[in-house]
């Protein structure tokens, strides 16, 4: 397909990708909608262009490349490690700006040396933007969900609370609501005397049998949705936690962690000091963090120029560790966004766990940045 609306720097970008040793792939513009909605959630529905096939299958115009590239990898049963690159149009419903625009990026699948792969994704993104946008000062922000996961685990929080907090990571308003809610006890109310008695007696088998009977009697299938066992187990867990509340000390530890914001070069020491002061054991997460900073150094990236923000994350189920984004200093427009998504490949149907990291470049925003005189921040 001859594309005449490609940004002028597209050819250079493709040369960059080739020089980085990636395999360029293309994916169909029309995609099954299911995987996108399944991975990103229903909210995506109003931001993509959906249609239906004659047979009633939901289709959409490609809203991004990561999922199609990963699906293609699984379908073609290509071995790992494999680094893919792509450049093509994506389609999204936006209130402002065009609904179709170019994106390019790299997906690095199956590299088991996590620190090096993370560092390479960041350094590639910085190198490409530096080459294509000469003279602009880039701001790189990095976050790491796995450090937050280690912090909530080390605080000794109940498993259910840890899950809730991790789930909300990257969404400051939601984290805040959650911390406030967990700070006061959540009594379990509204249970019938019979259920109360069963719960107090600790006789789980009878409780499950009772739930089972009630479901049968009210016409609910016991295997189509949540099972009596699942309901009983969670009820028990809620009862066990109903008098527990997040104590003031843990709350301030969590809040302190989430407020950390510093040059990445200082972050390993600061995290170590934070762990020591708070009496938390974060060894594994911290050494992995440290290894990534070292790997960035080896890749020629000056960690003093990058910012670590502890609360920075993407509230998407399949992002598991490092995330980063790059803007031009003083501008809110994200030119590159990336991160580690180790959970995505298995969610999409890969037989084995495949670690993955990648980034996407917003070519329309790069073009806008190029159109501005140097030294002036784009709006």
């Amino acid at each position, binding site marked *: 397909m001859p594309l005449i609306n490609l940004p002028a720097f597209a050819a250079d970008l493709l040369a960059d990708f080739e020089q980085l040793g990636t395999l360029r792939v293309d994916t169909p513009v029309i995609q099954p909608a299911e995987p996108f909605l399944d991975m990103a959630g*229903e*909210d995506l529905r109003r931001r993509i262009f959906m249609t239906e096939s004659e047979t009633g299958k939901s289709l959409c115009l490609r809203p991004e490349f990561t999922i199609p590239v990963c699906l293609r990898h699984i379908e073609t049963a290509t071995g790992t490690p494999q680094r893919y690159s792509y450049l093509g149009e994506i389609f999204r419903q936006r209130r402002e700006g065009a609904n179709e625009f170019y994106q390019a990026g790299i997906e690095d699948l199956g590299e088991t040396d996590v620190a090096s792969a993370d560092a390479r994704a960041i350094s590639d993104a910085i190198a490409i933007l530096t080459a294509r946008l000469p003279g602009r000062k880039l701001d790189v922000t990095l976050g790491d969900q796995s450090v937050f996961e280690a912090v909530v685990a080390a605080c000794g929080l109940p498993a259910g609370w840890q899950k809730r907090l991790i789930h909300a990571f990257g969404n400051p308003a939601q984290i805040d609501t959650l911390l406030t809610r967990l700070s006061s006890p959540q009594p*379990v109310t509204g249970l019938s005397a019979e*259920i109360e008695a069963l719960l107090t007696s600790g006789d789980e088998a009878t409780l499950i049998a009772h739930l089972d009977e009630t479901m049968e009697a009210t*016409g*609910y299938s016991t295997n189509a949705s949540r099972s009596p066992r699942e309901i009983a187990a969670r009820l028990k867990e809620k009862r066990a936690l109903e008098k527990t509340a997040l104590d003031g000390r843990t709350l301030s530890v969590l809040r302190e962690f989430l407020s950390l914001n510093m040059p990445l070069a200082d972050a390993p020491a600061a995290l170590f000091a934070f762990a020591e002061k708070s009496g938390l054991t974060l060894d594994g997460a911290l050494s992995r963090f440290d290894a990534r900073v070292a790997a960035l150094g080896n890749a020629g990236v000056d960690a003093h120029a990058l910012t670590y923000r502890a609360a920075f994350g993407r509230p998407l189920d399949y992002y598991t560790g490092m995330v980063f984004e790059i803007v031009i200093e003083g501008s809110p427009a994200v030119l590159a966004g990336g991160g580690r998504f180790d959970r995505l490949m298995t*969610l999409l149907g890969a037989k084995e766990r495949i670690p993955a990291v990648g980034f996407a470049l917003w070519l329309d925003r790069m073009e806008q940045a190029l159109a501005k005189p140097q030294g002036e921040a784009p709006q």
Partner: protein
Amino acid sequence: MTITIALPSKGRMKDDASAIFEKAGLKIVAVGNERSYRGRVEGLDDVEIAFLSASEISREIGNGSIDFGVTGEDLIREGLSEADARVEFCARLGFGHADVVVAVPEIWLDVDTMADLGDVAADFRARHGRRLAIATKYWRLTQQFFSSQHGIQLYRIVESLGATEGAPASGSADIIVDITSTGSTLKANHLKILSDGIMLRSEACLVRARKAEHAGDPLVAKIIEAVQGAVA
């Protein structure tokens, strides 16, 4: 300039709306026979009445082809993105009450709040190999409530155009978002409303399409004032 007001074309909504307008001194008379779809207001030559279905009213007010409409707030908020920027809710009319609610099977004894539901949704795929399924005809309201207000992303909407409350028992969805006025249909289907699961307390409203030419039009002001006076 002629002002068009759309009123519900049948049932209780039609009678209740006519009654309010009459009380407001805007007596509506049908043009032609009793079952005509057009009408006018006695004594006001510049006002046209169009009798439309409630969901048509929401659509027509959204694209500005009518000036005023009487319809349920739920239909406006579901039918139009950025509803408040496009229409003005001039008066709440005190009839057509219905709540849009999140309801789960009664037997989900451990689920009482949206936070509980968020926990269940987060785990659902790992346990059941699919996302939590919500049967509803309220796509937009559900997305706003779940995603924006409660940060719950991991669910799928199963479109349901009728008998939504039967979906959980039949296994076609896990939970529902639907309207209820008395709650008796939910109860009959062994469903319960979450304690913070009322998404919208809807009722019939007089809504105005936000049009520039309405500014300073005495007729527009008069209609709003009269209806507001009738329900005050």
